């Protein structure tokens, strides 16, 4: 099916029919002041050959040895079937086709995606996905502010244990709507302490809790959810969906469960690919479904009683509701969601749990190995999922740079985001990491530390 259908001849024919000389003339009522003009920084088109050369060069800059870096994007195994199927012409189009008459396959796939996400998160409804986890969080915050009419507040608490880049992206998006994001300091154990959360006369629209949090630690999600609800606030859960194969789903947090769950689908069949692209998910309760932005696919019956799939709850999207729409985004990440759905279907609940357990075990094994080295200690003790903080006897940035020379991506320098953690590194070992790779990491780090000590 051609999704970019207009040839020059067809365009000419249409212009002739309506009596306009050129496309430019068609738009002549748009004042000059509103026109972007030529986009100086957008380069001219290039040939496929040239493009492949440039991108191969860039991709090779990423082609490192074993990856122990997590912090939002994870090096999981992707079964070959995932992208073989995703790349089929029926799925791989220039635009996600939503037309019910022509796109039942795509619509059914998205419906299955929504069903799987709702089941994983323990929520009642999911949308067809959003751009990524961070923009998903921003949408969740805007949803909470709109949906929590009792609170009459635009204040949202955002703990320091939430991914710093998520905080930054959400702040950039919600600032335009006068939403106040208030950062909450964490305790020394790298966790949010419900007892120290600030209450305010200004009321509270929502509390955001990431589980596992940015440091891989497990928050007291039950206590935090109950605290938020006692304040009349909604609870927004940010969760790596892979972890939900083992951990309590947000829908069951506390007495009443989280109100919105969001996160990034990258662990499900999406390559790390220099940091993107990926897909985000948002799930929520029935009571908030009208605040849920973006596409939602519903299952229905046609006139002949046959099951079919169609877009539903579109009335609040921007093509109908203009400036009063729930979001300025009304599309989804069609292709990546296709990969994510095939990944979930291939793994099943058991497979996901196996990947999650193996990642946890490998991270435990890695940190056991690394803490054998003098001066290397677990920085935040306690329960973790597949990431851990390690305190080093040198600056984390130095160790990471030195290990990079040995083709090992050692982890994340936490000093980049937390000034008092310059000697703390965040490591992750997914199911893909082998014992040999972990031993190589330990030995390489030992050499770096020995050198630094002399």
């Amino acid at each position, binding site marked *: 099916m051609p999704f970019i259908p207009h040839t020059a001849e067809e365009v000419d024919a249409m212009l002739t029919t309506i009596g306009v000389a050129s496309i430019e003339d068609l738009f002549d009522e748009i004042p000059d002041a509103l026109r972007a003009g030529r986009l100086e920084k957008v380069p001219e088109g290039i040939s496929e050959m040239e493009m492949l050369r440039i991108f191969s060069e860039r991709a090779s800059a990423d082609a490192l040895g074993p990856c122990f870096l997590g912090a939002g994007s994870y090096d999981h195994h992707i079964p070959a079937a995932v992208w073989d199927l995703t790349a089929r012409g029926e799925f791989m189009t220039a635009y996600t086709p939503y037309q019910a008459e022509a796109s039942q396959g795509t619509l059914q796939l998205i419906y299955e995606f929504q069903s799987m996400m709702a089941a994983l998160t323990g929520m009642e409804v999911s949308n067809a996905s959003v751009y990524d986890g961070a923009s998903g969080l921003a949408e969740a915050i805007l949803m909470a502010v709109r949906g929590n*009419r009792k609170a009459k507040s635009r204040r949202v608490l955002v703990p320091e244990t939430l991914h710093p880049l998520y905080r930054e992206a959400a702040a950039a998006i919600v600032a335009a709507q006068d939403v106040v994001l208030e950062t909450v300091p964490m305790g020394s154990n790298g966790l949010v302490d419900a007892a120290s959360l600030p209450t305010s006369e200004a009321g509270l629209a929502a509390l955001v809790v990431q589980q596992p949090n940015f440091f891989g630690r497990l928050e007291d999600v039950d206590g935090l959810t109950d605290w938020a609800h006692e304040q009349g606030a909604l609870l927004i859960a940010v969760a790596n969906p892979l972890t939900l194969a083992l951990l309590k789903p947000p829908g069951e947090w506390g007495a009443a469960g989280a109100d919105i769950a969001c996160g990034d689908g990258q662990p499900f069949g999406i390559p790390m690919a220099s940091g993107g692209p990926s897909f985000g998910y948002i799930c929520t309760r029935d009571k908030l479904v*009208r605040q849920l932005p973006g596409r939602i696919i519903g299952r229905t019956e046609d006139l002949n009683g046959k099951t079919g799939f169609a877009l539903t709850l579109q*009335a*609040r999207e921007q093509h*109908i*509701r203009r400036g*009063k729409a729930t979001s300025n985004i009304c599309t989804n990440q069609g292709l990546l969601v296709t990969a994510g759905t095939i990944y979930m279907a291939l793994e099943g609940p058991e497979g996901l749990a196996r990947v999650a357990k193996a990642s946890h075990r490998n991270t435990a094994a890695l940190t056991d190995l690394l803490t054998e080295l003098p001066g290397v200690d677990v920085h935040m003790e306690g329960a973790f999922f597949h990431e851990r903080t390690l305190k080093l006897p040198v600056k984390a940035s130095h160790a990471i740079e030195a290990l990079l020379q040995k083709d090992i991506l050692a982890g994340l320098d936490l000093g980049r985001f937390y000034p008092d953690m310059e000697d703390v590194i965040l490591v992750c070992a997914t199911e893909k990491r082998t014992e040999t790779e972990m031993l190589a990491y330990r030995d390489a780090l030992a050499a770096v530390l020995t050198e630094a000590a002399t």
Partner: protein
Amino acid sequence: MSEIPTELKYAASHEWARLEEDGTVTVGISDHAQQALGDVVYVEHPEVGQTVSAGAETGVVESVKAASDIYAPVSGTITEINEALEDAPETVNQDPYGDGWFFKIEPDDVAELGELLDAPAYGELCEAESH
């Protein structure tokens, strides 16, 4: 042709208003409006106790094809909302001037009702809109 009861007052934004014996003003959307919207699937109400000024947004009515704002026809305080619409929004289509009412306002100034359209004037407006 839609029904336009002569005893009601109308806003150009298609709400009707009826002064009750207890002094409150009941508000709903006109037969013309419910026909134009199609099957109503959801009504978002204001809150009881909320003060509104004439012309202010006080809710949303959502049909299968559109979501439209509801405006207060007079200034005052919301005293009651039609909670039955939560479970049965189709009542708006079935009985727009009766059980399909939206909310009641205790008006600040009953005279404001005089600024709304009467049935013939509203009928002309609907007529003009459908051409």
